C-alpha cells in the first residue's frame, strides 16, 4: 500500500510543467469566475441598496374600491364596508410583504376645541386611527410614543397632524383671520380638547370629552384628518357602533423590494381593492435589476465555459503528455483501476489546490479593490455565498479529473503498447 502511495505522490509531482499549467488554469479560472460573480453581485446590490432603495415607494396604499357615482351621490355602498381582519391576514401572508398597517376612520362625530390666550375656537374634524409603526418616526418624545401604544384614560390623547393641515392654516387661514402663524416645533405639546360623539351636525348620546396633545407632524399619509392611536379609535368605534367587527378604511402594505411591490400590488388588486403604488418606477427598477442580472449571468456563463474549456484542455494535454509513462506502467503490470485512480487523484489534488489558491487570490484581490476602488458609493465586498464557494472548489477538482478520461480511454482501448 505504501509503495502505491509513493507512486501516487510521485505522479502528483510528475510532469511538473504540465501540472503547473493545469494548476494555473484552475487558479485563473476560479479567480476570473469569482471576480465576475462578486462584481456582478456588488453591482446588483448597489442598484438595490442605492438606487432602488432611494426611490421609494416600498409601500402600497390599499383602499376599498369606490362605487360608481352619479352627480353628487355614489350609487349604493362600496364593494365592501372596509378591509376586514381576515383580508389583512391574507395580505400579511403574501410573499415579499414585510408589514401591513391598517388605518381605521373614527366612525363617530368629532370636534376639536382650542383655547389659547383667551381665544377659543372649535371645529368639526375627521380622524383616523393609525398603528404606531406607521407614525413612529413622526412622534416627538418618548412619553407620546408610550401613550400611542398604550392609550390610557386620564392621559391626553397623542395626536399626529398632517403637515398639509399646518400649511393650509399658515398659508390660507392665519393671515386673513388675524391669527399668528404656527411653527412645527412650537406646536409640539400643544394641548386641546377632543369631543368624541358630537359635531355641529350631530350629537350622540353619551358623547365624551378627552384631552389631546399634538405629538408630531407627518407627510407619510396624505390626508386632511388628524391621526390618533389605532387602538383608541377602534375602542371608540366599538363603543358607539353596532357592528362589533373591526373594519379598516385603508391599509398600508410595506414590501421588501420593487419586484415585490409589482407582484403584491396585482395580487391585492385581484382581491377587489383599490391599490395605489408607483408600480411604473418599480417595474423599471425590477427590469433594470433583471437586465443587470442577465448580463452578469451571461458573462459568468461565458467565463464558466471558457474556464471549463481551458482547464479541460490543460488537463487533457497534461494527461496525453504522460501517456508514455502510463503505457509503461500498464505493460509492467499496473491495473486500469489503479492507474485511473492515480490519475484522478493527481488532477483532483491539482484542481483542489488550484481552486483554493484561486479563492485566496480572489480574497486578496477583492480586499485590494475594496481599498482602492471608490466610485460614488459603489463598494466592492466579498459576497460569494458558501454554496458558490463550495461549487468552485468542487468543480475546480472535478473538471480536471474528468478531463483526463479521454486520454486514459485512448490508452486502454487504442494503443497500449508501442514498440
Amino acid at each position, binding site marked *: *500500500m*505504501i*509503495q*502505491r502511495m*509513493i*507512486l501516487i505522490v510521485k505522479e502528483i509531482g510528475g510532469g511538473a510543467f504540465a501540472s503547473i499549467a493545469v494548476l494555473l488554469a484552475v487558479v485563473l479560472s476560479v479567480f476570473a469566475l469569482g471576480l465576475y460573480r462578486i462584481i456582478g453581485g456588488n453591482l446588483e446590490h448597489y442598484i438595490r441598496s442605492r438606487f432602488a432603495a432611494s426611490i421609494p415607494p416600498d409601500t402600497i396604499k390599499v383602499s376599498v374600491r369606490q362605487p360608481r357615482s352619479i352627480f353628487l351621490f355614489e350609487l349604493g355602498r362600496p364593494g365592501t364596508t372596509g378591509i376586514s381582519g381576515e383580508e389583512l391576514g391574507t395580505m400579511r401572508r403574501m410573499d415579499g410583504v414585510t408589514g401591513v398597517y391598517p388605518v381605521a376612520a373614527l366612525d363617530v362625530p368629532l370636534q376639536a376645541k382650542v383655547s389659547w390666550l383667551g381665544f377659543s375656537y372649535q371645529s368639526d374634524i375627521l380622524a383616523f386611527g393609525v398603528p404606531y409603526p406607521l407614525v413612529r418616526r413622526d412622534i416627538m418624545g418618548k412619553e407620546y410614543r408610550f401613550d400611542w401604544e398604550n392609550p390610557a384614560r386620564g392621559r391626553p390623547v397623542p395626536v399626529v397632524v398632517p403637515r398639509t393641515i399646518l400649511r393650509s392654516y399658515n398659508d390660507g387661514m392665519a393671515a386673513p383671520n388675524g391669527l399668528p402663524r404656527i411653527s412645527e416645533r412650537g406646536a409640539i405639546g400643544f394641548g386641546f380638547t377632543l369631543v368624541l360623539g358630537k359635531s355641529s351636525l350631530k350629537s350622540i348620546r353619551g358623547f365624551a370629552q378627552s384631552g389631546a396633545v399634538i405629538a408630531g407632524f407627518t407627510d407619510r399619509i396624505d390626508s386632511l384628518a388628524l391621526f390618533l392611536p389605532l387602538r383608541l379609535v377602534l375602542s371608540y368605534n366599538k363603543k358607539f357602533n353596532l357592528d362589533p367587527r373591526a373594519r379598516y378604511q385603508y391599509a398600508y402594505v410595506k414590501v421588501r423590494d420593487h419586484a415585490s411591490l409589482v407582484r403584491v400590488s396585482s395580487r391585492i388588486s385581484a382581491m377587489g381593492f383599490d391599490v395605489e403604488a408607483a408600480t411604473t418606477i418599480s417595474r423599471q427598477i425590477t427590469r433594470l435589476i433583471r437586465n443587470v442580472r442577465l448580463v452578469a449571468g451571461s458573462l459568468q456563463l461565458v467565463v464558466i465555459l471558457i474556464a471549463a474549456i481551458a482547464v479541460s484542455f490543460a488537463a487533457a494535454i497534461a494527461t496525453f503528455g504522460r501517456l*508514455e*509513462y502510463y503505457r*509503461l*506502467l*500498464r*505493460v*509492467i*503490470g*499496473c*491495473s*486500469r*483501476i*489503479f492507474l485511473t485512480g492515480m490519475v484522478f487523484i493527481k488532477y483532483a489534488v491539482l484542481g483542489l489546490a488550484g481552486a483554493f489558491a484561486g479563492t485566496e487570490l480572489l480574497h486578496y484581490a477583492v480586499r485590494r479593490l475594496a481599498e482602492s476602488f471608490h466610485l460614488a458609493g459603489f463598494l466592492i465586498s466579498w459576497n460569494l455565498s458558501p454554496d458558490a464557494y463550495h461549487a468552485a472548489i468542487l468543480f475546480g477538482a472535478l473538471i480536471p479529473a474528468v478531463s483526463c478520461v479521454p486520454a486514459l480511454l485512448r490508452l486502454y482501448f487504442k494503443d*497500449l*503498447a508501442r*514498440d
Partner: protein
Amino acid sequence: MILEAKGIVKIYNIAGTRRRILDGIDLALDRGDIVSLTGTSGCGKTTLLHVISGIASPDHGSVRINGKRMAYAFDLLASRMRNREIGFIFQTFRLLPNETVRTNVLLPARIRGLVDKRTKEYAEELLDRLKIYKFRNTKAAVLSGGQKQRVAIARALVNRPDLILADEPTANLDRKTAAGILDVIFDLRMQGKAVLVVTHDGYMHERSDRVYAIEDGKLAALS
C-alpha cells in the same frame, strides 16, 4: 511448462477487411528455453507478445503461464500476472529518463507493492550482475544505449518472473553492444527463465533453442 499458448487467433479490421494476424498459433516454452521469433514487418510478432502478456486478448485460443490461465476479461488479474510472471524488454528501453537507475529497476516491484530490503538487495545484485551497479544513482537519461538496455533487463527481472518477453531488444544498438546484451539474455537461461525474443539478429537465431517465423498468421519453425 512456463508458457503454453494454444490455438491463438487474432483478427484485426484493417481498411474495412478482416485480417487474421495470428491464425491458430501454438507455442510452448519450458524452463531454460530461449526461443527466437522472426518475420516480416507487420506479420504479427509484437501482437503475439501482447496476447501472451495479456495486453491484448485473442479472438480464440488460450494462454497459460506457469499453469495459470491468462484472465483477459479481468484486467486486475491479467495485470497482476503481467507484473509477477512476465518481464518485458523493449526495443526503445522505455525507462523513466528523469529517474535514477535504481528507481527505474524498482518500478515493477513498487507496482507490486513490495519494495522491502530483500527486493532492494536483489535489485542491486541484478545491477551488479549486469555491470551497471556504479550507475545505480545516475539518471537514466544520461546512460548509453547499451546501459539503458541493461537497466531495462534488470527492471524486467526484479519481480523474479519466469517468462521474459523481449521485443527486438538489440535493434537500437550497435553490433558490439548488441552482442553484449544478447550474452546477458542467454545468461538468463542459467537462471531458469524462459525467454521469447522477437529479433532479426542472426547471432541470436544461431544461439536460440528454436527459431520460429510468423507467415500468414501461422508459426513456422526455421530451426
